[in-house]
Every structure is written in C-alpha cells, then in structure tokens.
C-alpha cells in the first residue's frame, strides 16, 4: 500500500498525539501513586519504618528492699547482668547458644529448655543468663561483632545477706514461667520478668516488683542490634516499694545458729500486742541466693529428694499433733463450760495410768503424779488428770469449743500456702472416718492430751497462746508491718473471765518457774516466762518436742511456739524448751526490757 508523504506525516502526528496523551496519563498516574504513598500516608509509613527497625527492650525495675524491724537488710539488690538473644531465625539462635554455652555454663538440659522457650515465644528476646558474672559479660562485650544479636543489660540482682536464716519466710525470686504468664495475677508481665516465687517475695509481688521501663534499640533486617536509639520515647523503670518487716533479723540469725544439731523443726514468735511476727524460722533451711537466675537442676532434685525436706516451711505449711500444749485448750474449754476451775480435782489420782473399758491409758510419768488440781496438772502435764477432764467435758463440747477458738481455720498470715490444722468439728467427723460403730467415746481421752485426730501448726498454737496471754482477740499474725498492711483481729477470744485467765496464766508460770515444772530447768534468768511443754507421739520415731509460751508474764511482749521433730527421744530432754527459752531471753534483751524486780540482775558481759 502506497501512502502519500503528507498523509503519512499526518498519521504520524496523530499517532504521536495518542502516544503522548497515553504516556503522559500513565506518568501522571505514577506520580499520583507516589503522592498517595509519600504525602497522604507518609506518616503512617514513617511509623511502619520505625516498627521495622526499633525493638523495645524491657528495662527491669529494681525490686523493693526488705528491711527487718531494726532497719537491717533482709533482701536487697546488687548489680547484675542479663545476657539475652534477640528474636530471629531458630537456627541462628541455636547456634548462638552453642557458641556461648561453654562460657555461660549452659548445660544440655538448659539448652533444650531455652530452645523450647524460644519456640513458645519466638518474638521475644530470649534470656540466656540473668545472673551473668562480670567475666561472662566481658567475654561477650569483647567479641561484640561476633555476637551482634546478644544484648547485655544491667539488671539488679536479688541478694539475701542472711539467706538461710530467712529462707522460708522470704521465699525466693525467679524468672516467670510459661504457666504463670497465663495467670490473671501476672497480667501485663512479659516473659523473662523476675517474680517472687514463694514467701514474702511472692506475697508482696505487686508492691515489691515496681514497673519495668522500656528502651529502644535499632536493629537491621537480620535482627542484629545496630545501636541504642535515644529519642526520649523510652520510659524509665519505676523501682518497687520497700517493705518493712516486724521480723528481728538478729533473732532470726540466732534461731538458725542455735537450732539443735542434726534436728528438724521450726519456731515462730509473735508480739501478742499487735500480731507482728518477730521470728519465723524452719530448719533445715536452704539458701535462696542459689535460686537466683534459675535453679540449677541438680540443686533442685537434691532439695526435692532430701528426706529432711528443707523446702518445707514447718511453721505455716506443716502441722503436728500438739501434744500437751493442747491441755491449755482443754482447760479453757472446761472453764468455759463450767466443768473445770483451777482447783478442780478429778475422781482418780494419777498412778501412772488409767483404764478405760478394756484399754489402759498411760501418763507420761510411770510413777504417777498423785492427786492434783488443774493448776498442778498443768504444771506437771498430767495425762491421767486430763483424760478425766476430757471425759467430763464430753466430746460434743470439746469439738464445739475448739471450733469456737478458731482451730481448723488458717491464721491468715501474709505468706502463701498456709494450711489449716485438723480437729474434728463434731461426732460426724468420726462417723465419716471410722463408720458409726467404728469408734468409742475414748477418742475424747486422746483429744484431751493433744493426740488423736488433732494436727496444728506452730502458727495456730502461737495465736491461741497470744489470746491467752492478752485476754484479747488475737491479731492475725503478719510479717510486713506498715500502714498498708491491714491489722485484723481474729474475731474470737479465749472467752474466760479475767480471774479464770489469770489462773491459767499462773499455772503456766508454774510450769517454767517452779521446781517440778516440766520446763523449770530452762527458765530464763531475768524474766518470767510462762508456757507449756509438749511431747507429741510420733508413729515414725521419737516423739516431737513442743514448747509454747509467752514472756514477760505480766505484760507479754513475745509469744513463742517451737517444735523440734523427734526432739524428745528418751523422755527427759525436751529440745524445744531450752531452744525457745534462749530465743525469748535474746529478744527481750534486744528490746532493752529491764530485768524484772526480784530476778537476778543482768550481767553486763559474760
């Protein structure tokens, strides 16, 4: 087809115009797309860009310091370092762990645990060591370029200067676990946070923890940290509140150091006026400092499998048959029902035992106590007397009376896992346990001397003796003492007239201060201690040795309850009594209480 030149040129120009319009339109469209992206949604993409490269790193808050009643440090923070890996590909993280395992003492078990943790939370920094030593930190810092994914942050580390002495009370801290993260209590906690795991650290977590801050680092596409990013959009950590305890740390240390060699047991002391716990110690103890930064696996198994159960808090999470210390509860119930008064005699004198039906019930003293009134029976802890007292009160009044005195409830101390004691609430208990015909009225004999279906904690016994010592409703025992800790009374009293109460107190005074009293040998030098010994039968070996008492008797400042398991081996040496007595003296001395008139004056130095 031939075309004229002018025709061809016209066609060209027409096609050129079309091309110009089409390409111009497309270019305009492109420019509009850039306009939309850069101008209209620019700020949104600036944000995306920052999200891309900025990683928030939590700045741990120092936990509050815990002081004793004299301002001595029970728990504090010392400088420490956390070494963690930034999130990234699993292989890279595994390789990083392997390269550091030798230096950071990561065992193969821990390595698997860490990898599992990373699988569960792939987008969170993974803490490798939260108690890194200076040499470990130096190792990483000197090789910065090789460990660009590693973050080293200072994190205050928990320390207990007298760990063993306060172990069961203070508890310990550790990294929050996966199940704990799900609890409503730990809402808002991020993985890797250090939380109180037991004891006061757990009880007062909200107050002690503080609020962690945030700092930002700039990372590249490979997840390596490039630098700190300081534009002021981080927030500083808010330290936790300090906590003051009613505990006397010196007393606590002494309780640890003079505990009878090779024995197990516990002791608790309370100021009966206000419920402040002065001493709470369980033996054997563990060193909570060794739990910081992850409990080494072998330590954990050795503690768990130790037959002495060092992790058990024998004050609030264990119960024992109260033995003869229970006789004061029987006396109180008897006085309340009118079955007993301080000069009541029983029908049978003590000849070392008493028959009930075809069973013979023994007194601890095979030679017998002879004829005794209540006061004498308390002083000598005569079982034969109390068998008959129990019989006179009757099972129904006994169970009802114990319930009125709060037995079977928790004391409400500010520690986790407190357990309540065991005492039959009524006859139904025995029907349930042994069947309606499986038991006889003789159970009341056993209950009357603190045996049988009767398990009480040291704390519970101390609360009863507080009530007896003051005549008031006892204050719930509490370790922390400040305006934020509610002081609540238990809502029951011993329910005796003042003269009845004084009679019982006088009887308790005789136990310690009169020749022939079961604790006479260990009476304190300067103050009048009143109290009751106990020897609780133990099917697994020698009987447990109990002492519960208070001093000074006129204006009690300390109520103490102590037990030494199997601490009364041959029927003569009751280990709990001298132990408790020395602690009472030490405390009264430390608060500067002058010796009572008529007592030997204190010797300045021995």
């Amino acid at each position, binding site marked *: 087809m031939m075309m004229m030149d002018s025709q061809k040129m016209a066609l060209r120009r027409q096609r050129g115009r079309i091309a110009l319009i089409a390409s*111009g339109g497309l270019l305009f469209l492109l420019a509009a797309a850039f306009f939309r992206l850069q101008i209209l949604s620019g700020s*949104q993409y600036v944000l995306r860009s920052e999200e891309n490269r900025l990683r928030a790193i939590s700045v741990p808050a120092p936990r509050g310091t815990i002081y004793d009643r004299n301002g001595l440090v029970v728990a504090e923070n010392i400088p420490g370092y956390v070494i963690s890996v930034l999130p990234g590909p699993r292989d890279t993280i595994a390789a990083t762990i392997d390269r550091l395992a030798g230096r950071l003492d990561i065992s193969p078990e821990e390595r698997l645990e860490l990898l599992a943790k990373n699988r569960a939370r792939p987008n969170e920094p993974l803490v490798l060591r939260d108690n890194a030593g200076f040499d470990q930190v130096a190792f990483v810092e000197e090789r910065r370029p090789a460990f660009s994914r590693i973050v080293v942050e200072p994190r205050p580390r928990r320390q207990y200067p007298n760990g063993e002495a306060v172990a069961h009370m203070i508890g310990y801290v550790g990294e929050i676990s996966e199940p704990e993260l799900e609890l409503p209590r730990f809402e808002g906690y991020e993985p890797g946070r250090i939380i109180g795991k037991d004891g006061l650290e757990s009880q007062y977590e909200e107050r002690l923890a503080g609020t962690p801050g945030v700092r930002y680092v700039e990372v590249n596409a490979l997840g390596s940290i490039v630098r700190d990013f300081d534009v002021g959009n981080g927030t500083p950590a808010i330290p936790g509140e300090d906590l003051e305890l009613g505990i006397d740390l010196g007393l606590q240390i002494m309780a640890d150091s003079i505990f009878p060699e090779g024995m197990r047991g516990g002791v608790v002391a309370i100021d009966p006026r206000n419920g402040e716990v002065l001493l709470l110690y369980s033996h054997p103890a563990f060193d909570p400092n060794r739990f910081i930064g992850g409990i080494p696996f072998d330590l954990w198994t050795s503690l768990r499998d130790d037959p002495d159960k060092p992790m058990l808090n024998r004050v609030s999470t264990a119960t024992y048959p109260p033995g003869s210390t229970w006789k004061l509860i029987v006396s109180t119930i008897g006085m309340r029902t009118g079955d007993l008064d301080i000069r009541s005699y029983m029908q049978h004198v003590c000849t070392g035992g008493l028959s009930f039906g075809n069973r013979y019930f023994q007194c601890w003293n095979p030679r017998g106590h002879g004829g005794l009134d209540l006061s004498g029976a308390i002083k000598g802890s005569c079982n034969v007397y109390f068998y008959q007292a129990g019989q006179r009160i009757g099972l129904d009044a006994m169970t009802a009376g114990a319930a009125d005195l709060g037995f079977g409830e928790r004391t409400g101390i500010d520690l986790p896992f407190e357990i309540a004691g065991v005492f039959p609430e009524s006859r139904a208990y025995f029907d349930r346990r042994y069947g309606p015909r499986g038991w006889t009225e003789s159970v009341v004999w056993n209950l009357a001397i603190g045996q049988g279906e009767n398990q009480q904690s040291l704390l519970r016994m101390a609360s009863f003796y507080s009530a007896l010592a003051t005549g008031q409703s006892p204050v719930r025992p509490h370790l922390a003492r400040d305006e934020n800790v509610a002081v609540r009374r238990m809502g029951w009293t011993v329910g005796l007239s003042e003269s009845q109460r004084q009679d019982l107190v006088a009887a308790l005074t005789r136990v310690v201060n009169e020749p022939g009293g079961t604790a006479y040998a260990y009476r304190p030098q300067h103050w009048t201690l009143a109290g009751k010994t106990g020897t609780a039968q133990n099917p697994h070996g020698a009987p447990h040795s109990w002492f519960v008492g208070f001093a000074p008797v006129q204006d009690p400042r300390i109520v103490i309850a102590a037990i030494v398991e199997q601490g009364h081996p041959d029927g003569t040496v009751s280990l709990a009594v001298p132990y408790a007595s020395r602690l009472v003296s030490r405390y009264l001395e430390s608060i500067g209480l002058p010796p009572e008139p008529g007592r030997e004056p204190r010797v300045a130095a021995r």
Partner: protein
Amino acid sequence: MSWLRRIPGLGDPTLLGLMFLLTGLGIAMIYSAGQVEVPSVATGIWVRQLAWLCVAVMAFIIASRVPIRFLEWFAPWLYGLSLGLLLLVFAIGTGPSGSWLELGPARLQPAEVAKLGTIFMLARLLGDRDQDFAGLSRLWKPVAVVAVPFGLVLLQPDLGSALVFGVILIAALFWAGIPLVKIFLLVSPAVSLLLGFNWVVWGAWFVVLLVLLYFHRPFVLESVAVILANFAAGALTMPLWNSLAPYQQNRLLVFLDPEVDPRGAGWHLIQSKVAIGSGGLFGQGFATGPQKRLAFLPEQHTDFIFSVVGEELGFIGVLLFLGLFAWILWRVLRIAIDTDDDFGSGVTFCLFAVLFAHLVQNLGMTVGLLPITGLPLPLVSYGGSFLLLVYAGFGVIQRVAAER
C-alpha cells in the same frame, strides 16, 4: 551548542545531556544503595557501574556512527544472532534464573539483546512498503517476528521481559498506522487470558468483542479465528495458573494483597512501600534511609533502586526523576515523529515504548501498582549489560535524529 551539532551522528545534544544527567543521578543512587550497615554486594558497586558506563559510552558512539541504511540491512542478522543467543542460554545460561551468558569478566542478558534485534527486525518489516497489512491475517509476519523471542524468553522464565516483547509488537503496529481496532482484536486473546479467572467478567468481554466484530466487519474467517482464540485463551487461564509453581502464584497474588505473605513474596513489596512512604516530602536524606541502611529493602541497587530514591529524596526527588524521564521520553517521541524514514522512525518509537514500559513497570512495581516482575529502571538501576544496550539504543536514536 553548535559545535556539538558538528559531531557526526549526534542529532539531539539536549537528549544527550539528559541521558548523562540521569545516568549520573543513577550512579549516585547506586552509591547510596551501597551505604548499608549489613554486609552487602551493593557496597562499592557504583565503581563498577562507572566502569560499565565507559563501555556503554563506547557502544553509544559506535551505534551513533552506523548509518541507518546499514542498520536496516543488518537487522535480520542481528535478529538471528539474538535468537541464537537466546537458545544458547538454555545450554550454558548462568545466574539466578539461568538467563545470563558469561563473557569472560562480563555478563550479558540475551533477552536485552533480543529486544534490540526484534525492534530492528520489526521496523524493517513494517517499513517495507511492498508489504500489505490490510487484513488481520496479513499481520502474521510481524506477529511471528515477535512470537519467537517472546516464547524463548518466557521459557527462561522471565515474564517481565516477555511482556516487553508484547509492548514492542503493539508499539510497532501502532506506529506503522495499523488501525487501532485491528490491534485491539489482535491482543484480545491476551485479555481473555487475564479475564478467564472470572466467568462473568469474561462473558462481558465477549459481548464487547462481538459488538466490535459486528461493526468492524473483518473477513468471516478472521472473526471466527478471533472468537476461537479468545475462547481458547479464556479456557486456558485456569490450567495455566495451576501449572505455575506456588512461589510464582504468590508473586502475582501479593501484588493484590502483600499481607498475604508478608515474610515471603510480600516482603519486597511491603518493604518497598514502607521505604517510599517513609520518605515523605523531602526524604530521609541522601545515603541515610533507614530501610535501605538496615537492609530491609531488598535488591536496593537493581530492581528496587527507585525505592531508595523515594526513601532518601522524598516526593521531591521522585518528581525530579519522573520529570527527567518525561523530558527524555518527549525528546525521543519528537525524533520518532519528525523522522521521514520509516525504519528510523519505527525503531525510535519502539525504543520509546520499551523505555516507557520499563519505567512504568519498574515504578509501578515499587509502589504496588503492578506485580513484581524484575525489570530494571533504565539508566538508573545497577547492571552493566542493560546500561550498555540502553546506551546503544540511544546511539541509534541520535543517529536517526542526525539523519532526519
């Protein structure tokens, strides 16, 4: 400026200046692309681009010295050579998709050579006044000229470059004065291929097609052929789609919604949009864009170089680059219009179309308007052989301008 005119083969000094200016800006951006805080192949690579530029300038000079008539005579040989190279790729190709030929220290992408060869061949064919393109069926020759390299490139597989061959065909036919309806009918099966995903839309397309055929009234056989071709293409859509590897499907899908696969195929697009978007009006500053600096932006020195422009120079910088491109394209279009010679004019217009296609596809990809197909940005992206061929193309354009 008159002394410039006396240089043989230099027909448009302004175009020359614009070309050098954009190349210079491109090398600056390649330098910036290397300023990253993660070990990267892009570091220091601007020096290599500078070295390539010297070679490219030589190619430009040589191309501008070759008379147009000789080029026309030489076109079949070049076309044959490029087809040979394309076949060679299947035997000894290297590189990520096996589409490179190693030539000693340098690498050559035969698809780029084939673009030039096909343009020359088409321009020669369509400029031949003895040929008659009145009927639709008469277009079989130009279609065949394009179909062979198109098929070979598609098999590599390089979808982006293959589409450029389609653009070349349409551009050449358009410039040769073929009626628009005819071109439309010719490409209609490709549209069917795209619309075959949705039966309703495809049906509507068929109605449009039938109306067009009724008014245009081509030969009956041709009408039947168009209908059948459209039907076949639409029916082929799903089988073809299913024959694609999942990663290929993903690449096409993420263009519709990058968040479908944010860590995989969507990553490039998301990071590119974040880079460009965060540039705002004035940009983050030359060589300091965090997206690029911290290696979030992939291929920042080649296919996604314009994302660096967007991030570091902002909307202002984007407009500057767009303006320069528009000016260059305008000058090229002017030469195509003003040239008497059919072959020279055709070659120039096809080069215009190819440059424009690369520009639109590359920029459209970085902002998410078009799927990611991996076409470099002419004169700006890093890449030696592509720069060389673009310069050779500009050499031819200068020669055409000089001979008009």
